[in-house]
């Protein structure tokens, strides 16, 4: 049977997933293989070396770099408090005394007689890594962290902003093509993951932030609103560190696009349950998409399959068109002609025939569709 390779976003009622939780530099791993962990449990911890502050003592004391050792009150390795005197000159008249105070608390790392610089290092900062998803530790990477395995619902969005968070799912609209408006978000949604439909405007997202909503999951947003929220235009899709007060997961794209029916139904079936959400997106080689993970089985599911995505399309598969002039339109694959076809732009491309709901059949480049889960 004809089929064509196509990547798609994962929307799975129940799957076994593994999350690597690793420190950026070596530290201490706090969990062992077999441990059951909650999403906010700390599984590894390290100390990030403190920031370094150079102080040009030679300049400040108006002496040659080679002489500064004579004026230092602290030597390499000594601890120092903020405001404490680091070096001072010894004039005949006290009035002319100049002292150099430390701008930070920390230790003296080095004293240079070539440049006259003294390096001060702040105390290390503790960096904890949480489990992020509820599950079981299945692997320990010595000195770096663990791999947590969890079973549950797994939904990928197309684009997100903001980092990892946790909360209870609260579906705030009644259908996937309903807009999430300011009035839909109430005090009841504080600390929760709010699910909307086709779109959330600037007002609704700002309201969510002011209500302490942990994350907003919605079909589409306008780029103009995103710019307003961030204060700048996102140039390349590498996100996850934004601080707008909430995490945002867009499931379909930019514009007003109803959330896929299947995704919406799946989220609704887990309404009221605890979920882990991340907005981190990286669209490069080794792509990373935002995600919603709800541990545990949905009500009517008794078996949890491993990744079932087969990675290609066949006639009969439901698909969504992801580029103009039919952006957002849903249909089923009718046929996959193997030969190159001239499309409207005069390019030669591999295409497929898509049957729309009314029976109309249109031709679309294969690069411009996405498979929908049944």
């Amino acid at each position: 049977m004809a089929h064509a390779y196509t990547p798609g976003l994962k929307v799975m009622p129940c799957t076994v997933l593994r999350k690597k939780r690793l420190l950026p530099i070596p530290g201490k791993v706090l969990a062992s293989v077999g441990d059951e962990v909650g999403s906010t449990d700390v599984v590894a911890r390290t100390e990030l070396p403190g920031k370094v502050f150079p102080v040009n003592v030679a300049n400040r004391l108006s002496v040659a770099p080679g002489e500064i050792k004579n004026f230092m009150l602290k030597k390499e390795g000594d601890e120092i408090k903020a405001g404490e005197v680091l070096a001072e000159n010894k004039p005949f008249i006290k009035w002319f005394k100049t002292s150099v105070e430390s701008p930070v608390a920390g230790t003296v790392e080095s004293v240079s007689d070539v440049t006259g610089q003294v390096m001060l290092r702040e105390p290390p900062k503790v960096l904890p890594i949480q489990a992020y998803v509820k599950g079981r530790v299945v692997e320990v990477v010595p000195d770096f962290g663990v791999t947590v395995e969890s079973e549950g619902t797994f939904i990928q969005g197309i684009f997100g902003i903001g980092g990892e968070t946790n909360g209870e799912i609260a579906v705030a609209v009644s259908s996937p093509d309903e807009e999430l408006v300011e009035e839909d978000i109430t005090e009841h949604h504080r600390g929760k993951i709010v699910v909307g439909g086709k779109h959330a405007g600037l007002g609704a997202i700002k309201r969510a932030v002011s209500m302490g909503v942990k994350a907003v999951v919605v079909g589409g947003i306008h780029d103009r609103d995103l710019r307003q929220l961030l204060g700048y235009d996102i140039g390349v899709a590498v996100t996850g560190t934004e601080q707008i007060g909430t995490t945002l997961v867009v499931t379909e794209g930019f514009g007003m696009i109803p959330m896929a029916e299947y995704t919406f139904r799946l989220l609704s079936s887990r309404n009221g349950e605890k979920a882990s959400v991340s907005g981190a997106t990286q669209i490069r080689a080794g792509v990373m998409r935002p995600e919603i993970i709800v541990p545990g089985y949905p009500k009517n599911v008794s078996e949890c399959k491993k990744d079932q995505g087969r990675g290609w399309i066949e006639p009969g598969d439901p698909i969504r068109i992801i580029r103009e002039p039919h952006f957002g339109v849903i249909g089923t694959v009718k046929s996959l002609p193997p030969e190159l076809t001239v499309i409207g732009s005069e390019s030669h491309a591999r295409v497929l025939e898509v049957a729309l709901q009314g029976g109309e059949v249109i031709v679309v480049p294969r690069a411009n569709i996405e498979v929908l889960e049944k």
Partner: protein
Amino acid sequence: MSKKDLEIIIATDCGSTTTKAILIEKKGDTYRQTFRGEAPTTVEAPFEDVTKGVLNAITEVEELSGRKILDGERIITPNDGKTGVDIYVSTSSAGGGLQMMVAGAVKAMTGESAQRCALGAGAIVMDVLASNDGRADHEKIERIRQLRPDMMLLSGGTDGGTVTHVVELAQFLKAADPKPRLGASYKLPVIYAGNNKARPQITEILGDRTALIVTENLRPSLERENLMPARHKIHDIFLEHVMQQAPGYPKLMKMVGAPIMPTPAAVGSMTEKFAKANNFNVLAVDIGGATTDVFSVFGEVFNRTVSANLGMSYSISNVMAEAGLANILRWLPFDIEEQDLRNRLKNKMIRPTTIPQTIEDLQIEHAVSREALRLAFDQHKALAVGLKGVQQERSISDAFEQTASGQSLISVMKLDYVIGSGGILAHSPRRTQSMLMMIDAYQPEGVTRMAVDSIFMMPHLGVLAQISEKAALDVFYHDCLVRLGTCLAPKGLGKEGEKIMDWEVTTPDGRKQGGELRFGEMQHIPFDAPKAKLSARPVKGFDMGSGSGNRVEAEIEGGVVGLVLDGRGRPFSLAKDASRRRADLNKWYKAMGMYPV
């Protein structure tokens, strides 16, 4: 094996997504590219071995050519008529290419020299640190800590000059204790190419914390740049350290018959060879999904820049952010809502593999591409400059014409040849689209020949040129370049409709063709003779390269597009009024046969 024996060559370029193989065969006295194959690059999980993709791409060449090249995972050498090849060469940009951080004492002097040195070696420069870069010292240290380069180039000071600044940079580097991007277990390679007097101090400070390599100063005096020793060291470390950490590369390095080159270094080398062989000033551009590389050879000086976030898919939204929406809208011959355009570009960013299906969508991508090419060219012009800080001798007559040192080397009037590559230029449905996109972005003046590298063969040829320059240049002329034609653009401004130039071209067999060009119009003359003589007489106030109103005789090339006579004037600007601008664009696009009517 002597170079004369080379008859069959296989070359690959391992890109971050695709590995492309080409077969080159000697036919009579000439080398020709005969077959090509490609396969997905296999650097990432689950394969994590670049040679898998290489073997797959070569297998495709085997199937198409009927020549047996592989014996299992081994390349059969030498060729014995029906089987094997004489040599295998490869370039690589997989795994994000070569990422470097450079540092110099003064930003506009050693900082820039260090940047040019690293870029010319094919690196992506993540940041340029300098004593006077405007950042507070602790910010510099923080920046070094955050970035994880493959290696670092430290320069600063002229030989025998002051050591303080460069020693200070070394101390910052030590305090930051940077880690290499790949392989947490090895020390970060640091190349020191600064003041020779500071070598003992630098060795003392960095010797035990980093893998320090000391080489000749890249700016021995203010008047002289000496980039090659440091560039060679960069290549050595790229092969010895960086490549060794990338999945499968130690294996690949054993397969090749010449050192693996970073892809941009190979493209640069091919551009240089082409410019030298023809005595041309050349501009070559490769516009990809994420980045745009620009190479130039002007007056035998080679320069390369890479604009890391200007591209047509992953970085399309950044082109909008940097150019501004108005600059993209100005190339569109129709009206579109700002919100609609914003959403469309963002949707391309999040689904980078989609393609334009309609003419309208194609025109939007062409508009973005003009801006990406223009911005990358601006960045290139800013770096491809003469040495700054050089003292100039001035006579009294120069006092009224003050020119600073560090003028850009790039002159669009002196530009002889433009080569475009990358999807949007190489695969546009009509070649006129590629040519006009480059004309609009670069605004060449006078006589400029143009071509595209349709299947991006320049990397393969650049690495091959190390072994056989003849083979590389043969294939470059015959199979790599698709000649578009020549652009004739008088410099000057006039009144709409007034005559600005008479022109005539004569082919080697004596055929003549000619006419006149009026201000504000564009003419497209189909003309495919590979060589012809041009005689152009601009009117007073317009310059074709010999000064205002002076006749120009020049060699030109025809091609798949032909001659484009650009009477829009230089400097070229579009009408401010939107409806007038759209009418102009429609008129020019129609004259060029850009889009179906």
